[in-house]
């Protein structure tokens, strides 16, 4: 089954490598391990949420483009993997190994819909 591992951060948490947060080296090590295991379908890392751009509709249904930062955004996706493993237990095991689930963050696991 395919799962998305969404590596979640919180805007109040220490940034990567600062003040006891997981260091970039830990993320690189994890990336090497999960890639070597042959379960990664694709992966990505995102820049910080203040570089985000939003496209939504206004009251008239017109598409409106706006830029960050989005003060209301507390939790954000910092990066993610699509992995292909046998079941949720294996997905959970990878999420547990990820530095993203160390104190200050969490990993959200979402099964990919089979469409």
């Amino acid at each position, binding site marked *: 089954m395919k799962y998305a591992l969404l590596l979640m951060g919180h805007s109040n948490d220490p940034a990567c490598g600062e003040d006891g947060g997981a260091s970039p080296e830990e993320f690189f090590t994890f990336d090497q391990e999960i890639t070597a295991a042959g379960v990664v379908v694709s992966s990505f890392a995102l820049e910080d949420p203040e570089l985000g751009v939003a496209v939504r509709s206004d009251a008239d249904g017109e598409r409106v483009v706006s830029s960050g930062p989005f003060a209301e955004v507390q939790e954000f996706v910092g990066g993610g993997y699509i992995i292909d493993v*046998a079941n949720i237990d294996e997905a*959970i095991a990878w999420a547990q190994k990820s530095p993203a689930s160390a104190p200050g963050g969490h990993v959200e696991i979402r099964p990919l819909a089979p469409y």
Partner: protein
Amino acid sequence: MHPTPPGGAEDAPVLGSTPVAPVASADPVADADPVAAARTAVAAIDRDARARILATLARRFGDLDLAEDMLQEAFAQALHSWPQTRIPDAPEAWLHTTARRKALDVVRRENVLAQKLARLRIEEERAPGATDFADPADQIGPGRPDPVPDDRLGLFFACAHPVLTPEDRIALTLRFLAGLQTPEVAHALLVPVSTMQQRIVRAKKRIRSLGVPFETPRPEDLAARLAGVQRVVYLLYAEGFARSTGSAHLREDLTTEALRLARVLHRLMPATAEVTGLLALLVLTEARRPARTDPRGRPVPLPEQDRVQWDSHLIAEGVALAEQAAAAAGAGPYAIQAAIAAVHAEASSYSETDWDQIAVLYRLLEEREPGPVVRLGRAVALGRARGPEVGLRRLDELADDAALARFRPFHTARAVTLEQLDNPTGAAEAYRRALELPGNEAEDAYLAATLAGLEDG
């Protein structure tokens, strides 16, 4: 839902008015009425056998809905086919094979479903010819007992998986491992049937969509997952043992099912200390049940229980299991609780109870599983072992614990201790506090009567 047991002949399938030609058979009933014989044979497939087949199908297809539907169809097919052919030598294996083939048909027919079941341990079986050897049930000759491999352990772990909420875990366990129908589960857990239907549908969808495996976890995950499985069985028993609401009838439903499930789990993992410990604990607790309430359903405290009413067979079984658990590697909280229950069970009277040993066991329990209720148990045991002054001091040391302040048994224990210290005013106050806290009505009545006795005296 399930085929009707024999007795209602009017709704039996009708094969035609011509009597079936007699065939050579050792079974006179089958000669006389093959339809009745088939119905009897179907009815003889007990809940355990159904659970075994369901578990096997669930593991193979990873889909509880499909497993249930196809098992149902296999039962219908049996009622139709067996009178015309004969009752198979291994009916359970026949049902399993039939249900499995029907499920494969559905998967072949429905591409979307096949995609959803993308883990496809069934993929190998869709290859031509593979079914000839893929199914163990096909290889079973007559007379072999227990023909279907037992996958219930996997079902235990799926139903108690950490990705499900605790209430969903209990509901699923009752539904698929205890084999209760959804309305029965709703009744047992005191929620409306519609709520329970939604809960079970939601939980099944979660299991399917998330890809919760129907198998024993990997060795490194086993301890954590097994603890979750045991917790469900334990909570099920606790739910029946001392409800905050509900009738005695409901309580026995749940305790009986929990005990049965603990036995199944123990049969599946007999060498595991904590599994043995949990079964021992439930068996020993169950042994005392007849004495725990009076004929009017009111609770009888341990000192006043008539030990003649304790079930001596269960006690013998439970003590043996508790000793086995204590001696095994990996003994933990359940084994220790079982040992405490065994000390109580082996005492010929309340005053003969080895409270020193119980206090030591509580200390061991507290080291492994520190918690307010364990500390309360230890305080009570120390009070019994060393006198009410020590007991009261220990209890009062716990008075700041917010959880215990809201816990009825804490105040009851204080009340009893204060009574022993000849302090009726303090005891009455503690009983009044206990009565303000949640508990079942039978317990309310008992506490109110005790309080009234104190106030009169």
